[in-house]
């Protein structure tokens, strides 16, 4: 199996849709309105927070908002100066989706919320609750991991590497981080194909 044939290659994992197993997009959008379109999706690493933002973006666009997707991570812990300047130009047509709000310091968070106050909405992701009211907490389970694996690679069900027991062990080994577990499945598939 070459990397481009591996079902767990990075580009394929990036396109895995969010699984609404205990809620729906409509329910979340309704809750978001109750929070005056300012809320947070929380959860630990690899639980699907970014994927949920990706899933909600088209619904927000369908409501006529211009969605702006912002990303912060450990190598980009603050917005560039130009972004801070552009926040002042936001209006009721703009909806901000911010991934990685926990990277901002307490002062920067306050500044961000103030700078984006004219936007129609702000939905952000964070590891812990507290920045904005919690819209949804992303959790993972070995069953969810099993579902994702089956969706990504539906064919080789016969392999022991795709069994429930293996998935449980994989889930535990990655402490519930679905992204890392799926990345390990890349190696599993590559090794299986070499047998």
């Amino acid at each position, binding site marked *: 199996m070459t*990397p*481009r044939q*591996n079902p767990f290659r990075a580009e394929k994992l*990036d396109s895995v849709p969010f699984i609404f197993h205990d809620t729906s997009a409509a329910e979340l959008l309704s809750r978001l309105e109750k929070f005056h379109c300012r809320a947070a999706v929380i959860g630990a690493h690899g639980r699907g927070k970014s994927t949920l933002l990706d899933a909600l973006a088209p619904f927000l666009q369908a409501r006529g908002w211009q969605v702006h997707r912002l*990303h912060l991570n450990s190598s980009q812990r603050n917005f560039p100066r130009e972004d801070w300047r552009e926040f002042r130009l936001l209006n009721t047509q703009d909806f901000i989706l911010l*991934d990685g709000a926990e990277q901002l310091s307490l002062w920067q968070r306050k500044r961000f919320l103030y700078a984006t106050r004219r936007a129609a909405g702000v939905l952000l*992701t964070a590891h812990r609750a507290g920045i904005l009211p919690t819209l949804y907490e992303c959790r993972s389970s070995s069953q969810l991991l099993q579902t994702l694996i089956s969706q990504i690679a539906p064919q080789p069900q016969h392999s022991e590497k795709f069994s429930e027991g293996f998935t449980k062990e994989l889930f535990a080994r990655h402490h519930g981080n679905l*992204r890392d577990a799926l990345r390990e499945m*890349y190696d599993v598939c590559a090794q299986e194909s*070499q047998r």
Partner: protein
Amino acid sequence: MNALEISIREGKTNFTPGATIAGEFSWQLQKSANALELRLIWFTQGKGTSDVSVESTQRIEAPALSGKHDFSFQLPLAPHSFAGTLIELSWALELVTIPGHDSARTDFVLAPGGQKIALSQSDTGDFEELASKVPAWLQNKIGIKKPSSIQSENPFESTTANRNS
């Protein structure tokens, strides 16, 4: 639906560095497009983040609803097509409508001897030997480190997607 097609002369799919790739591309559009662009690209796929580079383009402004056009590109000397366990680099010609999402792609091999380089020892082989087969510019890009500094079993670990969730 728009129909786009790329035909490489004589059906060739294997090329050597510096060779010329030529052929014809044709199109049938349902509605007019601003332009058609034929792109000579290489891209990577695998465990790490994908990388794409457009090396050359040929563009037709305001194309008719249907037509065909010859193309010719001199291929660069590198990077070579290769495939290992963790990463694969492929070359392709891609025809796209602008604006629009329609595209057609034809893959081909660019490597010495016209054969894709196989990094077959990636799991058990000597790391330095393996790394030496990867072009120097790509070693930096995908984060191959000296063996002494390898913390992980996976030399491509540093290329993980930068998602933050």
